[in-house]
């Protein structure tokens, strides 16, 4: 046997190997700043993870090998099946589920650590659980449990297992507040009695946190999912970091913090893109109040065109910007849109894609959907980058997007979406909107864009329309 086979738990050798492991994770994210190097970075991180796992298995005194192999086998089987079968449109659900199991693992480990502490007190090894262990245990238990249940609800909503519209019970805010206060109070009691903490009370905390996770996510509507998923991602990360404090494990602290930072950055970015605070999204379910300025229902004049006219406008343009929204993903139109873009490119039209940060159901979702359809990533332009070019764009094509193109966000200070950053398609020379009807988007307000003089509406299914336009362009 190799002499290294028995590493001292918490010893220098094990810690050194953990440091190598988390360095791989950080280096990986660094490589992840460019599409070309990111794949290699991912492999480096996987290598770091393997090292961390092997190091742990080599710790002196580890036993129960059969059970360990059982757990690893179950997890690996589920992971392989899930990751190879998932469709790119289902990516948000998948990440929600991963957030969930991650949080669940942390909550379980916290429970086991508490039981360990109680056992040590009972056997006289310890007189009390030290606070620098107990407080992280409680934190990771609460946050882990909230993430587990909250993520499961998010998953169920995205998978259409439960209605995506906001669901709420009367007095929900009060119930949530009571639960939160109860959880904090129970944790304080557990901390004060750290010489004899009650396991029953701890389980009560886990259950209350589970309820809170359910109740917080249930009232949140489908379009707010990018924020919810990012936030739960941040939560699971922080709970892992807390577990690292409880277990005195540097790899957990650093990796958890990295995940927490990532989730936090994405949460803030998504909230900014919707011009709403995180608190507003969490505690004021959008659909709840179709606010003032909502659709008036009156007929307003608009221009309607067919696929042939649209094809002519596009084919004789120099530059075309395609603005995809979630409707494009729902219609599975990404491949048809790519074909349309290819036909235009053949005629020398410069085609690019303007991606709003919340165009999909999670950060960067639309980019992945288009990448799957073979759209080169250089063609995907961010909102801030493309907006100044809009006045020089001949035709902007809006496909399945609505609120993120509504000029009222810029022009009408009384609009419910006033101040929300938008893709400024109304600045383009001409606009074609492919949409089934004039119905309002998720915010429940009329889109002024549809009634602008330079806008033409093409009423059709996104996939059908893109296919028709591609065929018409080919025949011109």
């Amino acid at each position, binding site marked *: 046997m190799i002499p290294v086979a028995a590493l001292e*738990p918490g010893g220098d050798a094990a810690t050194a190997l953990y440091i190598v492991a988390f360095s791989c994770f950080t280096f*990986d*994210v660094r490589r*992840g*700043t460019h*599409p070309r190097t*990111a794949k290699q970075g*991912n*492999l480096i*991180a996987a290598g770091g*993870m393997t090292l961390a796992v092997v190091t742990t*298995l080599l710790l002196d005194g580890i036993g*129960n090998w059969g*059970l360990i192999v059982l*757990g*690893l086998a*179950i*997890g690996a089987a*589920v*992971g392989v099946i*899930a990751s190879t079968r998932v469709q*790119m449109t289902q*990516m948000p659900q*998948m*990440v929600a589920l*991963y957030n969930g*199991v*991650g949080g*669940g*693992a942390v909550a379980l480990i916290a429970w*086991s650590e508490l*039981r360990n502490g109680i056992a040590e007190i009972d056997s006289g090894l310890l007189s009390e659980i030290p606070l620098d262990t107990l407080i992280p245990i409680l934190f990771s238990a609460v946050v882990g449990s909230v993430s587990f249940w909250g993520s499961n609800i998010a998953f169920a909503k995205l998978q259409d297992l439960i209605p995506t519209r906001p669901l709420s019970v009367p007095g929900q805010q009060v119930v949530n507040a009571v639960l939160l206060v109860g959880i904090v109070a129970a944790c304080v009691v557990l901390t004060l009695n750290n010489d004899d903490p009650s396991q029953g009370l701890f389980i009560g905390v886990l259950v209350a946190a589970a309820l809170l996770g359910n109740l917080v996510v249930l009232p949140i509507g489908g379009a707010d999912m990018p924020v919810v998923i990012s936030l739960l*991602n941040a939560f699971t990360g922080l709970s*892992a*970091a807390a577990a690292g*404090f409880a*277990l*005195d*494990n540097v790899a*957990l*602290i650093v*990796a*958890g*913090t*990295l*995940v927490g*930072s990532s*989730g936090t*950055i994405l949460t803030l970015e998504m909230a900014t893109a919707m011009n709403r605070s995180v608190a507003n999204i969490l505690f004021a379910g959008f659909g709840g109040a179709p606010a003032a300025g909502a659709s008036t229902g009156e007929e307003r004049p608009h221009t309607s065109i067919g696929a042939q006219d649209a094809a002519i406008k596009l084919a004789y343009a120099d530059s075309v910007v395609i603005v995809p929204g979630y409707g494009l993903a729902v219609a599975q139109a990404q491949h048809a849109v790519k074909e349309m873009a*290819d036909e235009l490119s053949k005629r020398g039209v410069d*085609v690019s894609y303007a991606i709003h940060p919340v165009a999909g159901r999670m950060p*960067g979702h639309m*980019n*992945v959907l288009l*990448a799957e359809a*073979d759209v080169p*990533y250089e*063609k*995907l332009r*961010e909102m801030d980058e493309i907006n100044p070019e809009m006045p020089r764009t001949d035709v902007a094509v809006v496909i399945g997007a609505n609120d993120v193109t509504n000029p009222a966000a810029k022009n009408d200070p009384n609009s419910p979406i006033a101040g929300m950053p938008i893709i400024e398609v109304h600045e383009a020379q001409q606009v074609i909107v492919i949409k089934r009807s004039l119905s309002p988007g998720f915010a429940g307000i009329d889109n002024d864009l549809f009634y602008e003089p330079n806008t033409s509406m093409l009423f059709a299914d996104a996939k059908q329309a893109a296919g028709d336009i591609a065929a018409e362009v080919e025949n011109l």
Partner: protein
Amino acid sequence: MDVIIEITIFVLAAFVGFEVISKVPTTLHTPLMSQTNAIHGIVMLGGLIVVGFADDGLEKLIGVIAIAFGMINIVGGFMVTDRMLGMFARKPKPAAEEAPKQ
């Protein structure tokens, strides 16, 4: 380990995390999330320690579930990220015909 040292590590890691992750472009945010899911799977180490040193039944059960959960994160997270990044990396054939980007 001294809790103050751990807090130092945490704070420094947070700064490094914010610094590095804010440089990841929007295009890669979905793979970033699935990858952070995988990295989060590091909590499996806790599960391994729980099972590895467990002697009562409930403890073993808790640990095995935690290991399975963590492993789903690790295996599923890295594999699905690899799949997605493959889509960004591959050379689309019609690229040569497309108008050059200004």
